[in-house]
């Protein structure tokens, strides 16, 4: 995972202004290229059948199928896929659900501006990442 070439990212987020902001941030912080984006789970699942990004950013609250379920399906199809969950919920149960679904990291929206670059790098480096205020899931 240490290729010098630009690393790629796919963004699943229903709010367009947030999608753009994540994209810009990742590009500036870590030199990521956005391969594409989707505004709901079904769209993302279909699009990712043909793409192989280094990292997928998934918002928990999506219209219809939620981020956890999407993560579970994506990881089931491609076990090596690295999924970073973006969420507004600080509750531990959310974090545990995310990890159980197969995500490799959990970033709070309130902390995303400062942490997204570091989070992406950590997860791509093979470790788990939790933004500072996230309660660590039990059992890990």
């Amino acid at each position, binding site marked *: 995972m240490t290729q010098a070439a630009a690393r790629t990212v796919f963004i699943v987020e229903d709010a367009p*202004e947030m999608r753009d*902001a994540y994209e810009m*941030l990742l590009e*500036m912080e870590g030199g990521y290229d956005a391969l594409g984006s989707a505004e709901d789970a079904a769209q993302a699942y279909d699009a990712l059948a043909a793409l192989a990004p280094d990292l997928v950013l998934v918002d928990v609250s999506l219209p219809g199928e939620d981020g956890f379920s999407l993560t579970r399906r994506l990881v089931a199809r491609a076990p090596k896929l690295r999924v970073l969950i973006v969420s*507004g*919920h600080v509750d531990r149960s959310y974090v545990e659900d995310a990890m159980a679904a197969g995500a490799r990291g959990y970033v709070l*929206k309130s902390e*995303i501006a400062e942490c997204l670059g570091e989070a992406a790098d950590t997860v791509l480096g093979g470790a788990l990442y939790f933004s500072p205020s996230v309660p660590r899931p039990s059992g890990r």
Partner: protein
Amino acid sequence: MKATPEIFRLFVVGADDARRQRYADRLHALLPHLRILEAETLAQAMPGVPRAFERTLSAPSILLDSPPTLPGDGIVMPLLYVPAGPLQEMPAGVFDVLPEGDGAAEWEGMLNASIHRLIAYFRLYERLQKERQGRLAQEARLQKYLLAAGRNAGASAPASPADGADLAEAAQERLRKAAHDLRSPLNAVIGYGDLLREDLEDKGLDDLAADAFKIRRVGKRLLKTIDALVEPLVDDGTETDADALSGHLATPEAPRAAPLRPSTSADAPAAGATPRTATSKPAVPDLEVDFEAEEEDRVTNVLVVDDDDELRGLMARFLEGEGFTAHVARNGREGIASAREIHPDAITLDVHMPEMDGWSVLDALKSDDELASIPVIMLTGRGNERMAARALRTGVDDYLIKGDMTALGLRRAVEGVLEKDRLRRQVDRTQRALVSANEALRGFADTLEQRVDEQTLQLRGLASSLTLAEQRERQRISQVLHDNLQQVLYGINLRVHLFKQKTTKHTPDWDEAAQLEELGEMGDLLQKAIHMTRTLTVELSPPALRKEGLGEVMEWLAAQMHNLHNLKVDVETRGSCRVPLREMRVLLFQLVRELLFNVAKHADVERAKVILEEVGDDLRIRVEDDGQGFDVAAMKARASTRTEGGLGLSGMEERLSLFRGHLDIQSAPGEGTRTLIEVPCEALGGSPETPATQTATVA
């Protein structure tokens, strides 16, 4: 939540000084319009009240220590219990419980809401306590009264010191003098009358002699009346035993008191002469205990049953001479027959009679329910005292020895048994009165107990439904905040961050035009956030609720319904329909909103109608639609478990009933829905100048 003109007091009770101080400070900051008082124990929060009601809290209180086990008086105390640690179980007798908080805004909000509920409850608590105190006071009054009544029945108990003792003394003195002044000339009249009678008899003018005899009789009766008036005072023993067997003399005498009139009658005109009864009867409303009402001037009938013609005639004459009305019977059978016919007040009965002796007559009298209570005086011969003793054991009231018969002796015996009988009947009446008063009291206590229980139950249910409703509303607000407002704020935050990064790193193309464009977009997002908060604020507390007229509130609600749920609501207001009490306004608003919400969601119609009208001073609201209609019971069940927010319909109905208002829903599938809400005028808040009723509004 606005501060109200009324200064409400609130106790913070706890032994831990630091913790109590912390709460007091926090409350003071949170609720500046309340007066926060501190106390170490609950007892200190119950100052200055009479012992009997010592458990009355003088202000709603926040209790920081575990509540004492309170002896149940059935009234839940206005206590908000904030346990230091985790709560094991809900303590009894406490209105509400709040977990120890960290001072976070959310917790403070809960504290605030709890306190307002507590204050609202305190009003009811005060009323319940007042009712209870009224009951206790009435019990005490009745107790006192019954004691007094019991004393009067005993008659020999000392007179209770009356307030107007001096006054009574003076009245007695006047009466004593008047009685004396009357008695002397009256005795002269009687004496001369008797002399006249004797002279006339001697001359064989028996017709005239009978008239002269009447003079004596009437005079004697008059004398008795005077004696009765001054009854307790005449016991001076200045009696002359001149009335010998011959019965010929009528010397002036001061007869011993022998009242035929009831001495305990409270209606006695001579109130001064019987002070203990006239002044010791307290007024007890509702409990009628009528003690006495024997007619004052009624004739006292005495039946003489004797086979001896001479003795019988003599006794009859004695009795007549003493102011009684004598009836005679020559044997037992005749005696019983005549007793049945005239129901005499007393009977004298000769033991030795042929055919049917006195004992048989006595048996017959005592086994007849109608006659059993008539007092009987047995007449026995000299030397038969043993028999006399037997007589007394077998239900005879007194006995006389034939040989000792005098007019005075006979009179005393008759008056004695009459007095005994009167007392016995009075004791019976008193006992009956006691029993029925006791029953009444018990019934009264039961009813009150039951009402308190019902109200407590109702309150508990209400408190929990309020809590549930509040929880639902919180959940809804939380969701609105998270799903909408927070997302926008996160976005703005992110873009500010990016703006900074791009500017510091001198990103290519990040020129003034790009920056201005980005700033414009951020401004738009801010506008969006502001709009969201404004909508939320209005939803939480409709501005129209500040006005007293319910019509405006409903118009606003109609507009909301149209915007949010596409339901066109026609509002018709007949009369001013003012509801000065804000709490009631909010309740009615919530009720109608809930009803309209149900129409929008379930009725499948585009229109609904709200009619406000004044019926007399009461307010009537009708909410009508021509939609699908529904099964009322099923809808209520659904409404109570709804999670969309707002108060459940059943909870609101309950709250309305606390204000003596009521709600009636008529609907059936396919027939539309007609809902009628009625609120009595006193629940609307009367004049707007009564701020006392306007606190504790959780809007």
